[in-house]
């Protein structure tokens, strides 16, 4: 459907399935004394949904801005489809950005906003109208073209910002925390919606590079993700990889709950849902005592202090327990058991595991 309006790009992504759309080589960016991005290497494959995940100030947004061309790196190279674009201006790069604050021009109608990129590239009027119409249909807001951005809701503005970028059929679409300003319910709706739109435009092979600090968002949406911390990439992998095999303590803590134990000189992590808790306090497993209970509705989170040192968070589904049962278990002795294959060794900060 979208192929009618978006120019053919299938050849690139289809014939060379492992084509790299975005490549960063030793990219470094400083602001005065602050190192925002510290020698980052990154490869994003064509057609991929790739997420840059990290806390605020970790360098993920700067990395995105380096790809867009709003910033120039102090060192290193930025390549798009194998071409060095390090010193090219944003308007000379085949990428488009969805801004966190949407940045819709308030003095233009929605249709003029969406058509802006085509207009400055002198696309004929008839084609412009056709493509704007088509993309508004893809984002399921076909009738808002005559309105001003201020007359739209937050979620609608978000989609228009997406349409304004997508209508240009860029090779790479950059999204800077696009759902950050929406409330939880709308955010979840838009996550599904974004994935649908990505599937719909993936026929023409648009690569999505997505910035977020929300680990759940990153896990549910990405094909692959890179976890950022203090300007460096801690780990790159698929969501399952990163969640189940966190490479560093930081990743273990940031993506999910930090459940790190040290036993016999070995530092490892085990995910809370992989731990069995025996409430009678007898049998196999490590003995401990429930220190804290958090009732979350669908499940209950227990923080267990282990007798031989350390603390683990355990998550149990509320199959039969009610909130009062769960809360009364505070202070009770328990035993925790987990399978060795569910533990993963940590790299020590600054050293090897």
């Amino acid at each position, binding site marked *: 459907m979208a192929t009618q309006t978006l120019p053919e790009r299938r050849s690139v992504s289809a014939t060379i399935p492992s084509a790299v759309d975005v490549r960063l080589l030793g990219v470094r960016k400083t602001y005065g004394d602050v190192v925002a991005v510290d020698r980052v290497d990154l490869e994003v494959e064509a057609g991929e949904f790739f997420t840059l995940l990290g806390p605020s100030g970790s360098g993920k947004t700067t990395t995105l801005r380096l790809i867009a*061309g*709003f910033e120039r790196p102090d060192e290193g190279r930025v390549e798009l489809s194998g071409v060095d674009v390090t010193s090219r201006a944003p308007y000379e790069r085949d990428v488009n950005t969805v801004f966190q604050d949407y*940045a819709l021009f308030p003095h233009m109608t929605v249709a003029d906003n969406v058509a802006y990129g085509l207009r400055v590239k002198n696309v004929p009027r008839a084609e412009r109208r056709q493509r704007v119409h088509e993309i508004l249909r893809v984002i399921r807001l076909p009738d808002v073209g005559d309105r001003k951005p201020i007359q739209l809701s937050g979620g609608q503005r978000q989609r228009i910002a997406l349409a304004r970028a997508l209508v240009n059929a860029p090779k790479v679409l950059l999204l800077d925390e696009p759902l950050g300003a929406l409330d939880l319910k709308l955010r979840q709706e838009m996550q599904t919606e974004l994935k649908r739109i990505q599937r719909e435009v993936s026929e023409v092979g648009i690569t999505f590079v997505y910035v977020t600090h929300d680990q759940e968002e990153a896990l549910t949406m990405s094909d692959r993700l890179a976890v950022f911390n203090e300007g460096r990439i801690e780990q790159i992998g698929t969501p399952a990889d990163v969640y189940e095999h966190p490479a560093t303590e930081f990743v273990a803590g940031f993506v999910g709950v930090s459940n790190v134990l040290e036993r016999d000189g070995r530092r490892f992590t085990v995910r809370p849902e992989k731990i069995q808790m025996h409430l009678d306090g007898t049998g196999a497993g490590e003995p401990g005592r429930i220190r804290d209970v958090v009732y979350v509705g669908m499940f209950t989170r227990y923080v267990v202090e282990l007798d031989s040192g350390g603390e683990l968070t355990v998550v149990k589904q509320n199959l039969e327990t009610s909130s009062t049962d769960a809360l009364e278990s505070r202070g009770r002795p328990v035993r925790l058991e987990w399978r060795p294959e569910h533990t993963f060794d940590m790299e020590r900060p600054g050293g090897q595991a």
Partner: protein
Amino acid sequence: MASQAYEAGRRTSSTARRRLSAALWRRPWLRALGLLVPPLGWMVIFYLAALAVLFVSAFWSIDSFTGKLTHAWTWANFHTLVSDPTYRQIAFRTIWMAAAVTATDAVIALPFAYFMARIASPRLRTTLFVLVLLPLWSSYLARIYAWRLILNHDGALNWSLAKIGLPQQGWAFTSVAMWIVFSYIWLPFMILPVYAALERIPDSYFEASRDLGARGWTTFRRVVVPLALPGIVAGSIFTFSLTLGDYITPSLVGNVDFIGNVIYRNVLGLTNNLPFAAAYATVPLVVMALYLAVAKRLGAFEAL
């Protein structure tokens, strides 16, 4: 005893105060009224009442023999200023000058304000602010006389032109001189609102425009100018109305009459025809009313 009475008195006064504040809290309109009456009263008495007197006296006339005010209702003053080509010409000349000065200031202020708001470092921005505002702290008359010294036949301008071997200029006491001086004097009133409008544009608009393929000039034309327009219109209200009402600049650096000069002469000069001065004074008022109506439609009042 005394201290008891004092305590009781204090209690009643604090109760009274509490009751008053509670009453004000329950009736917000009472609070608003208390805040608005003094300035509104001032406006009504000294401004609107004076305007009303002006409008009424415009329909009076002067007895040509005795020079005494006749309180009889007549359209004669308005008839004169419409039918007499001299007064028509003066009115058009004034409006034309106001428009030319406004356009000039807009053209100068836009790039200047853009530089101040988007390019200059905070330090440089402060310096430029001071430079823009500095002339406003000195006397208006002093600045006009300074321009007289610059534009005179043997003034600073011709002296400099002679030094670099360029032909002499005869701008002194011409419309060109008035245009230059007016544009100079009212420029700060254009720069400040344009600056305010440009300063409010988020960086992401500029980035979005570049991201979508627009070069600098296209971004300027399609994003910066439209978003600065309310500021330009707001500034033009000042430059236009101030030029429209001024009579000092024309009399000091010009050679022709403006509306203000005619009014001045009819109020204080030999003619001493107050009703005609009042009638003529309604011309800039009407022009400004029309101008403000257009400005309002362009969103100028949100940029002030």
